[in-house]
């Protein structure tokens, strides 16, 4: 080898080694002391071993104001590149808090949008690890331009490739809107902080005192706001969740779940699902046991686990094929639809539909949550999202009515009228225009009022109504339910239906796009 080449390679190695140190050993130490992994540790934990190829390591910022021309920022505070997860390629960017607090300037943002464009061109998922103090103020309006360009790319890529945001540090102000535009937001306890205006601003402007954790910590977003879809106790756990999700979902909207796995029976302890369902329809049960009794290997990845727990949504496999599961949860708030659960369900349906994932709905829904707060906060327009999403979805739609399916809830939860492809009901199903008590009160108002003992008459009429209508056979009589089945045959029926729906195709009315009740 000639000497000139050797010298240049040594120079390259030296430059790379220096840039790999990010903000320097002291800054990296500070990162570790804050209980956070460094950017390289994170990328190693996320991707397959030795699969990461960095792009844009030498990018420099172009800012000359406020003495910035003398400041060197390794990789401009963000590591970008490609790698694989379980052998499948992905694009990644990870903000480096050790470099100027991970602050976002134009070069930093352009590195991000470049890797996003790459992900779009190659039709692979894009994963962003956010750990940034916010806009790099010295860069002025260019920092805002950077955010704006990222938002535009997020929106363009929406529904084409999976976009995953990982919050591993602060993510405040404008920065929050990139994660909010992506498909799945992952947060880590005590590490993630997300808010539009921080505790200090809120105190100054409004006089309200609140800590960072209570305002925008991981738990708040996983349980109260619903901004986060996955919550982890540690960064390691979070990366394991991301890898699990990416093994389940298709990697672009053009691919069916190409990695169909061999079918696998549910675990023995869940196989007999009847045992999880109480005899009394007013007794709660955990619907997740039913889901586990139906899915392959009883393996279910729940999305939005802590948020709006009266609904359960998530991914699993049925006969080897990825499916999206939506279920009412009788264990929490009796499984009612309310504003939060409507938002949760509607968004999940749209995700599945965009990526060609069949939908399986398990229904046990006594109605909508009554209350002034629900009405005033807009249950009408939020509830409408569920209808819109189910009607609009053209993927295979399979419905199992387990117990209660009353009124608007019956219609909304992927009924035949929303163009469900297959509707099954268990013998325990109660499908009617409204619950027996409410219906008897209206239909037999006169009889009850004029009876000698109105209370006894009321009870009698409720019983009569129950006997006549609180069952699946009236709906099955109209063909709204295709078949009433033994609950233990649910998996078998769903698999047969799913296989025959494999080539489902639906002619869609030509339009630019609909106007969902956002």
């Amino acid at each position, binding site marked *: 080898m000639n000497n000139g080449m050797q010298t240049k390679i040594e120079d390259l190695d030296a430059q790379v080694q220096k840039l790999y140190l990010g903000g320097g050993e002291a800054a990296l130490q500070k990162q570790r002391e804050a209980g956070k992994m460094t950017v390289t540790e994170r990328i190693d934990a996320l991707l397959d071993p030795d699969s990461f190829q960095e792009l844009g390591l030498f990018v420099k910022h172009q800012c000359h104001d406020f003495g910035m021309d003398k400041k060197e920022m390794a990789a401009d505070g963000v590591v970008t590149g490609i790698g694989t997860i379980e052998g499948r390629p992905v694009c990644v960017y990870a903000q480096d808090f050790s470099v100027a607090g991970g602050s976002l300037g134009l070069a930093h943002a352009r590195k991000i949008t470049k890797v996003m464009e790459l992900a779009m061109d190659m039709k692979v998922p894009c994963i962003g690890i956010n750990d940034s103090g916010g806009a790099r103020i010295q860069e002025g309006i260019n920092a805002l331009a950077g955010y704006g360009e990222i938002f535009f790319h997020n929106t363009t890529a929406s529904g084409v490739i999976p976009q995953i945001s990982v919050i591993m540090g602060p993510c405040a102000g404008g920065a929050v809107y990139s994660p909010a535009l992506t498909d799945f937001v992952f947060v880590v306890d005590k590490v993630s902080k997300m808010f539009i205006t921080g505790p200090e601003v809120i105190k100054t*402007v*409004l*006089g*309200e005192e609140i800590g960072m954790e209570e305002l925008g910590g991981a738990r708040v977003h996983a*349980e*109260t706001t619903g901004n986060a879809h996955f919550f982890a106790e540690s960064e390691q756990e979070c990366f394991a969740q991301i890898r699990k999700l990416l093994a389940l979902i298709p990697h672009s909207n053009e691919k069916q779940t190409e990695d169909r796995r061999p079918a696998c029976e549910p675990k023995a302890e869940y196989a007999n699902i009847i045992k999880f369902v109480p005899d009394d329809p*007013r*007794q*709660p*049960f*955990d619907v997740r046991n039913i889901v586990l009794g139906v899915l392959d290997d009883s393996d279910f990845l729940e999305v939005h686990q802590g948020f*709006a*727990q*009266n609904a359960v949504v998530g991914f699993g496999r049925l006969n080897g094929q990825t499916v999206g599961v939506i279920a009412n949860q*009788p*264990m*929490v*708030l*009796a*499984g*009612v639809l309310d504003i*939060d659960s409507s938002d949760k369900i509607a968004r999940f349906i749209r995700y599945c539909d965009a990526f060609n994932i069949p939908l399986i709905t398990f229904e046990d829904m*006594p*109605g909508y*949550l*009554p*209350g*002034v*707060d629900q009405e*005033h906060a807009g249950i009408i327009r939020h509830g409408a999202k569920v209808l819109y999403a189910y009607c609009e979805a053209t993927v295979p739609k399979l419905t199992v009515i387990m117990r209660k399916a*009353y009124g608007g809830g019956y219609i909304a939860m992927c009924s035949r009228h929303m163009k469900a492809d297959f509707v099954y009901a268990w013998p325990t199903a109660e499908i009617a225009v*409204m*619950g*027996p*008590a*409410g219906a008897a009160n209206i239909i037999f108002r006169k009889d009850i009022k004029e009876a000698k003992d109105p209370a006894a008459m009321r009870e009698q009429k409720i019983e009569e109504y129950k006997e006549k209508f609180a069952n699946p056979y009236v709906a099955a009589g109209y063909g709204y339910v295709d078949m009433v089945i033994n609950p233990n045959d649910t998996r078998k029926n769903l698999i047969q239906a799913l296989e025959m729906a494999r080539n489902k195709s639906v002619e869609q009315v030509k339009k630019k796009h609909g106007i969902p009740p956002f």
Partner: protein
Amino acid sequence: MDNLNILHLEDGEYQTQLTEKYLKRKPYSAPEPIVKAAIPGTIMEVLVKEGQQVKRGDALCVLDSMKMNNTICASDNGVVKKVYITVGQSVGKNAPLVEFK
């Protein structure tokens, strides 16, 4: 199953768990006829007197807040019962400004 509570729905009672968000709900009460400061700030002008008849949309006061001189208007017709503010006064969030009869 733990922490089961009773939830009252249209069709009767259900045993179920209640979420923290549900438990934190505030019961509804009819709004008082008092115009309050939605954001803290400084009163720049007071435009009504006690006993004055105002119409919906009439300006009541000017509140300097969020880099803006905000004109606070009456949301309904009515007669001013009490004016809580004077020019130059700092008001906090939800501070009463003008009360109607």
